[in-house]
């Protein structure tokens, strides 16, 4: 579904990604972790071309993201993305947040988009909030809306960029629950997250990054039982202490 082959990226002299190679098969849930500044977010933003990269190749469903001939908006419309800071559109109601791209990008009939939006809001248990604006919802609720908004586009895979990092602790689980459900339904997912509990429960594989390189790319069990690199061992020791 997603392949990355020797992807490298730099801002001027600063190397952000170096030769990153991995793949995500259909239905797989891959968790990307690593210390901050290791390039995790940049890596998944290369998948839908939000971050351009200088060399290497990324393909989604066989379509090359870096190819100038590729219709990126069209590709992105089918790759769901959830951001750390939710990024709901604050000037629109919740239901409009869910319908705007369905109507304007996919060309769906507004009534159909509305039905789809309401069904998804129901699914994340926020149907009663449909007419409110994002500012009136809690962080956890906003992030659930953001997931619903991405799902409304019928994505072939979902990218999560630290979806729980900006949340108060008591709200993290409501978001992780929605993500776990999605994973169980067979959604292909790539998640940058520090939630190792989520990784242990849900992930098929774990990618560990450090200084712009993919240091480990292993099955979940192998990664947690016996990380091969020192950096991953240290990282896990620190993060799992609590």
């Amino acid at each position: 579904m997603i392949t990355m082959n020797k992807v490298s990226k730099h801002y001027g002299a600063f190397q952000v990604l170096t030769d990153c190679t991995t793949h995500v098969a259909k239905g797989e849930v891959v968790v990307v972790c690593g210390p901050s500044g290791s390039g995790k977010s940049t890596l998944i933003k290369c998948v839908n071309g939000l971050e351009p990269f200088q060399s290497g190749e990324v393909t989604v469903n066989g379509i090359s993201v870096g190819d100038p001939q590729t219709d990126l908006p069209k590709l992105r419309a089918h790759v769901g993305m959830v951001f750390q800071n939710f990024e709901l559109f604050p000037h629109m109601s919740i239901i409009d947040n869910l319908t705007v791209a369905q109507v304007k990008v996919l060309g769906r009939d507004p009534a159909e988009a509305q039905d789809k939006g309401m069904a998804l809001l129901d699914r994340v248990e926020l149907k009663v909030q449909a007419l409110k604006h994002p500012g009136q919802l809690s962080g956890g609720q906003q992030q659930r809306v953001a997931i619903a908004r991405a799902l409304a586009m019928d994505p072939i895979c979902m990218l999560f960029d630290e979806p729980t990092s900006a949340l108060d602790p008591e709200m993290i689980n409501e978001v992780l629950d929605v993500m776990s459900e999605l994973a169980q339904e067979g959604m292909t997912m790539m998640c940058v997250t520090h939630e190792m509990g989520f990784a242990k429960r849900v992930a098929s594989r774990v990618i560990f990054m450090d200084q712009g390189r993919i240091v480990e790319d292993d099955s979940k069990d192998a990664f947690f039982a016996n990380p091969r690199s020192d950096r991953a061992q240290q990282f896990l020791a620190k993060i799992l202490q609590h």
Partner: protein
Amino acid sequence: MYEFDWTSIPGALPFLAQGMVVSLQITGVAILVGIVWGTLLAMMRLSSASALSWFAAGYVNLFRAVPLVMVLLWFFLIVPHLLETLFGFPRGSDMRMGSAIAGFALFEAAYYSEIIRAGIQSVSKGQMAAASALGMGYAQSMRLVVLPQAFRNMVPLLLTQGIILFQDTSLVYVSALADFFGAASKVGDRDGRLVEMLLFAGAVYFVICFTISQLVRYYQTKLKTA
């Protein structure tokens, strides 16, 4: 001791009202065109295409570096000739209103574009990213996501600039166009009551501008609490 005589005002009111209509027309059209053209300039300035960005920067710097009254005079002198030559307008037709509006609109667009540029930059980059991630193209993202938020944040500044523009319309006296100020000074000259007329005109400007700026302030506090 100067003796005030206000008696010429009531009779002059219809003429003054006509002048006010001229002032408001110039203000209204210049705000509208200024905002539309200013938005385009702001988007050019922020665009990654360097030719567009340079053009917009040059335009803004040029108009912000020359006095408004001079721009008005240029347009007053140049536009009629241009229209005569290019579109065959009859020689000597009255272009004062058209050239005044064109001058104001193009001048104000430079100021509006800076306000709008700041407004666009005030919208977090994540919003553009979220719109792109949903498959919107650049124009769609701007139109549906970024600009509505930018304008919401900008309304107070745009209105304040509008008030300044309304006051500046009095500068059309250089082309002898009878806006409100021009009308007042004409009546004052005619009746030998210039001081009274100008005091009266000043009071009217004050009431209008003060009222609108209070409304802007009210809107601003509402925006903050929202």
